[in-house]
């Protein structure tokens, strides 16, 4: 799904952020990237999103060499990814609903499809009741779930999260990673950058450690961890690889049955909390 081959990154000011990195992340994996501040973790993610270009080596995403990708194709690459930031990056003046809808609207989704899909996703992250709140009225954990909902709304095949738990308290952090784990079980590839070792240890996921721009350890692909078998419908596979803009026509019926399980899990989860 994602491969780095002899990738180095030197920023224009001379900072060597990554040095000869080789990584292979399989489809459906959940990977933690750990390392001290300044190790090069964010640079690693930016290279995947094509926000930065490698100085040498090459990167493939979905079997496509993105190093050679034309500029005008980059937006379509990004539509296959959902991105979650440490600082949530929510738009203050928009409601929770509109923040999530924004991601669909700006890739040209039709209003009807937006309404349906956003409500569904907000249910998935347990924020249906907060749809009309402003981000400022939510806790950090809730804000990060909005951010996650936004990342999920366009049905990406990869979720990339840069220190998603950096600004929220430990209990909420656990919840966010748990949520990501559930999403992972449906077949979405997940890459989470974090420097919280506690959190990493609680989950039996693959861990790649970066130090001074180099991979210093890699626990390797975790073979069997899911209680729920990963099953992806043919339709979903097609959607993940489709390069066109027709993710706009979501319909409740089109959501793979495996995703519906997640809805139930979280609707239950919400109920249990109260």
């Amino acid at each position, binding site marked *: 799904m994602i491969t780095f081959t002899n990738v180095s990154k030197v920023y224009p000011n001379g900072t060597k952020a990554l040095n000869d990195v080789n990584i292979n992340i399989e489809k459906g994996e959940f990977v933690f990237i750990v390392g001290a501040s300044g190790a090069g973790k964010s640079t690693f993610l930016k290279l995947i999103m094509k926000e930065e270009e490698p100085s040498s080596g090459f990167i493939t995403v979905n079997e496509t060499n993105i190093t050679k990708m034309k500029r*005008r194709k980059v937006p379509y*690459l990004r*539509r296959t990814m959902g991105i979650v930031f440490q600082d949530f990056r929510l*738009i203050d003046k928009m409601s929770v609903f509109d923040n999530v809808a924004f*991601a669909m609207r*700006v890739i*040209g989704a039709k209003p009807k499809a937006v309404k349906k899909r956003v409500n569904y996703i907000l249910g998935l992250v347990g924020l249906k009741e907060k749809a009309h709140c402003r981000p400022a009225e939510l806790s950090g954990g809730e804000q990060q779930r909005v951010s996650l909902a936004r990342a999920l709304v*366009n049905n990406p095949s990869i979720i990339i999260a840069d220190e998603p738990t950096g600004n929220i308290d430990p209990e909420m952090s656990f919840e966010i990673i748990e949520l990501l784990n559930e999403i992972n079980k449906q077949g979405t590839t997940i890459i989470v950058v974090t420097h919280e070792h506690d959190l990493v240890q609680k989950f039996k996921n693959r861990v790649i450690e970066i130090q001074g721009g180099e991979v210093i350890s890699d626990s390797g692909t975790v073979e069997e961890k899911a209680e729920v078998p990963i099953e992806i419908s043919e339709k979903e596979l097609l959607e993940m690889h489709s390069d066109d803009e027709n993710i706009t026509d979501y319909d409740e019926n089109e959501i793979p049955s495996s995703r519906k399980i997640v809805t139930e899990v979280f609707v239950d989860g919400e109920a249990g909390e109260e």
Partner: protein
Amino acid sequence: MIGLGYLTKEGIKSVWNNRMMSAASIGVLVSCLLITGVAVLLSLNVARIVDTVGKDNQITVFLKENIDDVTAIQKIGPEIRKLDNIASCEFYSKSEAIVKWESELGSLFGELQGEENPLPNAFHVAMVDLSQYDDTVENIKNVEGVDIISDRSDVAKRLTELNILVTKVGAWLVTALGIISLFIISNSVRMTMYSRRFEISIMKSVGATNHFVRTPFVIEGIVLGLISGGIASVIIAFLYEAMVSAVKYIVPIKEIPYSELAFQMSATFIIFGMIIGAIGALISIGRYLNMEGGEILGW
């Protein structure tokens, strides 16, 4: 086009959200359009006056006293017509002239008819192009038998010079003000982009195409241009009436009625405004589209 309704709404919203800057750009653009409009209207009117003055103010070419009708018609007339820039050349005999004088001034000249007629034979000559007035007059003077030429078209000549000046100054004004307007609009859109850089960075990270990021800002520019063009269209109508009555107070002129110009003027203002708006916006957008993630946010 996908989501054009959404994009248009966004573009219009940001005109309102940035109303201070929008008002400033509209103010400047309206002023530019008005100055341009006044120059154009002035030039059109001068051209019209020159046209009328030129038409009914043909020059009179008086012949030497000893030239008789036959010589004038058979020899001098054709020679004048052969010259460049002659629109018409009609014989005006001294007997015709004295009759006209009499009809206007009474029988005072009664005894001056026939052999006693002191007036010379003449030609009424009209020119094709008044800007070549001097050369043409010089050429006519060189024709054998021509005595003096009445200089009644001087006004038209001056007006033609004025018209050329107005056109030249107008062209410079349009260019200079066009550049200023572009600068102002592009600045206004740049402010919007700056205030929305956060949204732009999110749009890019979720995979919005450049076209999609760009469109609301182009629409903002176009809307600013449209509003300015509309306002300028209304103001110019009043301004024109005021200008005309001010000029009429000093010199009696017959102006072009505004109703004859209104449609073209408004259409030009609006289209010109919209084009300036769109180009102004595009100037600002390029920079943002080439940036990524944190760069957009200035981190």
